[in-house]
């Protein structure tokens, strides 16, 4: 089809979303199918669902000219067709072949839309698949007395990707002829007029199946006139079971609409502007009100006040109204961006299955809270880290089945994946009932790699923290599944980038629990505004512990680093003015400090003054500016001025590194 008929880019983006959804569904279906094979009870609807999903992938990829995707989808569809017609036994090997096929199909889709390199081994796989299915197809050929030399439509369909216009024309001519025959037949022998038998499972690409199910009569009458046995397929009832399974499911149709995330972002940006303006109008109203109440400055005279007073009140009222509406808009737009985290969880049963199988472990994954909503951006980002955690749990957490038995545990290990809301956060827990992290081993490893020294007195928590250190070798203790070499430091960094907090608890012999706390959204946050020299900075409120005024006499200097002692804890100070090289003078008498903390580590940020709390809309810095150490973004304030947002995380870890010296020194004090 010519390109002017449609915007190809747009179609491809729809195709990608749709294919992703379908592949996910195929995965889920396959897992259920596998369970069925193991338990000996399968629901035929699973195979039908697989068949339909593959059929849709085939159709859509065909429209876009993704020949390879179409070809493979077709072959897999074919296999499912054999399965659902009981022409091929449902076995573990069939499911394994489908699993592999599904993965290659995913690879082909990604390469078709230009996201990945083409996957390896497609040709070999198709070869294998053909051999596998041909056994069963040939059986049926023999049954149906076919020689296999005839060029028939199912073969054309099997090679639909190469179908020429002539093939299509032939197919259509065939249908016309069948129709004519059917009409002639019904004219000759009036059959029951209305109910053409309802068929439950539509059949697509392998029409041989029909022959088997044909009532003998029409075959007899039509066959002689037709050159091809397939064509004998008539308006025959296919699986004439009681009808209309659709009717019973009528109740729950989910109405959804696909929206480009960029459009939502644009909308959110506008809402952001609205929020800013609301703040500004409130400011003006407040100022006016203050002026009105300021009787001392009544030089302007009572008359003017008489006019302005009601105006000020009007303004205040409408500002309040505006505030309410913007809040609601803001809330609903945030909700639009929310999607259930199940979208990510869905792919994990497969992952756990694969890793467990490869490692000879027996693991069950228990998922709860899949319906918990959070921001789409976060959902997209949190998949990777969770995947690594789960791999890690299977690989290193759960013991081998025999080992577990010896320890008196169930052979099958359990990993639970749980999500729930807590206030403005979502909590995701990944827990296993394996052996726990071996602290001695970690400590030994840390020593060997020079991350700690032998006279460091580390708490258990600090030892566990070592596994998050970049470069901490993963060889023995932590994850290095499939040689990817992805360490826990990457997992932690990813979570931190999402403004999340990552925690781990481990009990020797009983298991490990990773807890991830993430904000529900990244777009709008509460911030504390501070002034430094002439600049306003915003500090995310969730990391602010307290703010204080401290006399200089309470500030000590250790190895060139300023520190204070706060409730027995040593807190390093960072002078914002000096960190950002703003110039300005140090106050010789006192410092204003904002104590910020992340995961038990605290740092005092020295500022000039506190300017109050405000809701801010985070705007990322453009690429032109690049990454600035200590700054995570910017925001526009009510008065139109720009404020930079302080990256608490990087400041805390910075100070912590140099603060290590301080701690060693102070431990003797």
């Amino acid at each position, binding site marked *: 089809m010519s390109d002017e008929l449609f915007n190809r880019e747009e179609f491809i983006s729809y195709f990608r979303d749709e294919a992703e959804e379908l592949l996910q569904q195929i995965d889920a279906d396959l897992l259920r199918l596998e369970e069925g094979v193991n338990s000996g009870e399968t629901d035929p609807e699973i195979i039908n669902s697989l068949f339909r999903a593959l059929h849709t992938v085939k159709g859509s990829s065909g*429209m876009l000219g993704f020949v390879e995707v179409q070809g493979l989808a077709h072959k897999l569809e074919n296999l499912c067709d054999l399965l659902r017609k009981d022409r091929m036994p449902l076995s573990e090997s069939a499911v394994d072949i489908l699993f592999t096929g599904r993965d290659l199909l995913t690879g082909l889709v990604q390469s078709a839309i230009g996201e990945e390199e083409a996957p390896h081994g497609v040709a070999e796989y198709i070869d294998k698949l053909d051999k596998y299915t041909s056994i069963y197809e040939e059986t049926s050929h023999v049954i149906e007395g076919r020689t296999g030399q005839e060029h028939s439509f199912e073969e054309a369909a099997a090679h639909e990707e190469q179908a020429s216009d002539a093939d299509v024309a032939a197919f259509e001519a065939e249908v016309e002829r069948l129709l004519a025959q059917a009409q002639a037949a019904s004219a000759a022998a009036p059959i029951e007029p209305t109910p053409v038998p309802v068929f439950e499972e539509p059949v697509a690409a392998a029409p041989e199946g029909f022959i088997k199910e044909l009532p003998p009569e029409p075959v007899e009458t039509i066959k002689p006139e037709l050159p091809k046995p397939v064509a004998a397929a008539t308006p025959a009832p296919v699986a004439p079971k009681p009808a209309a399974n659709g009717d019973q499911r009528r109740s729950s149709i989910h109405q959804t609409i696909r929206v480009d995330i960029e459009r939502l972002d644009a909308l959110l940006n506008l809402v952001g502007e609205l929020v800013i303006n609301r703040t500004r109008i409130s400011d003006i109203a407040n100022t006016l009100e203050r002026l009105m109440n300021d009787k001392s400055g009544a030089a302007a005279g009572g008359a003017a006040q008489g006019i302005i007073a009601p105006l000020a009140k009007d303004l205040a009222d409408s500002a309040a109204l505006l505030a309410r509406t913007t809040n609601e808009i803001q809330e609903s737009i945030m909700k639009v961006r929310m999607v259930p985290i199940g979208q990510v969880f869905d792919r994990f049963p497969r992952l756990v299955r694969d890793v467990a199988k490869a490692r000879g472990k027996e693991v069950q994954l228990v998922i709860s809270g899949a319906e918990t909503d959070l921001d789409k951006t976060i959902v997209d980002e949190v998949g990777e880290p969770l995947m690594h955690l789960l791999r890690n749990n299977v690989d290193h957490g759960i013991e081998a089945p025999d080992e577990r038995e010896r320890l008196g545990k169930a052979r099958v290990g359990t990993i639970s994946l749980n999500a729930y809301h807590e206030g403005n956060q979502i909590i995701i827990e990944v827990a296993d009932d394996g052996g726990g992290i071996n602290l001695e081993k970690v400590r030994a490893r840390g020593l060997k790699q020079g991350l700690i020294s032998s006279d460091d007195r580390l708490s258990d928590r600090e030892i566990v923290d070592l596994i998050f250190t970049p470069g901490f070798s993963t060889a023995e203790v932590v994850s290095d599944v499939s040689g990817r070499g992805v360490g826990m430091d990457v997992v932690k960094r990813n979570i931190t980038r999402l403004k999340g907090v990552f925690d781990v608890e481990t009990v020797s012999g009983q298991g490990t629990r990773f807890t991830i706390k993430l904000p529900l959204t990244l777009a709008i946050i509460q911030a504390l505004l501070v002034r430094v020299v002439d600049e306003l900075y915003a500090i995310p409120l969730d990391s602010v512990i307290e703010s204080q005024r401290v006399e200089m006499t309470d500030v000590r200097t250790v190895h060139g680093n300023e520190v204070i002692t706060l409730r027995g804890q040593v807190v390093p100070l960072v002078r914002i003015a000096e960190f950002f090289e703003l110039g300005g003078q140090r106050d010789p008498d006192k410092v204003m400090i904002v104590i910020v903390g992340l995961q038990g580590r605290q740092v005092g940020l020295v500022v000039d003054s506190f300017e109050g709390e405000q809701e801010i809309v985070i705007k990322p810095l453009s690429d032109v500016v690049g990454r600035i150490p200590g700054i995570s973004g910017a925001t526009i304030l009510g008065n139109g001025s720009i404020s930079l947002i302080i990256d608490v995380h990087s400041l805390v870890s910075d100070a912590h590194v140099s603060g290590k010296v301080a701690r060693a020194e102070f431990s003797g004090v």
Partner: protein
Amino acid sequence: MSKRVLIVDDAVVMRMMIKGILSKNGFDVVGEAQNGVEAVEKYKQLQPDLVTMDMVMPEMDGITAVKQIVAGDPNAKIIMCTSMGQQALVVEAIQAGAKSFITKPFQPPKILETIQKVLS
């Protein structure tokens, strides 16, 4: 007045594609449905001049939908969208009351020709 069309297909790419072709040729796509159940409901609600109907869909397949639509409106004009190899089903659909069929992958001129024929 341009003719009002309801597009039924479970694949969003297909719906977009058909919609693109029809809209650019003066048809008014008044609705889309992604399975047979929706198709029957939307037909009742929208009373379109024409329906394009996929065959393989979840919840309710295209042929069942044709039957239910035709049962309510014997004059319904429904065109089946079919893949090669589905000849038996096409015949069944047409016996159930569909007026014609088009074969995937679609050729725009062919679609338009078929539609004109069905509408005239």
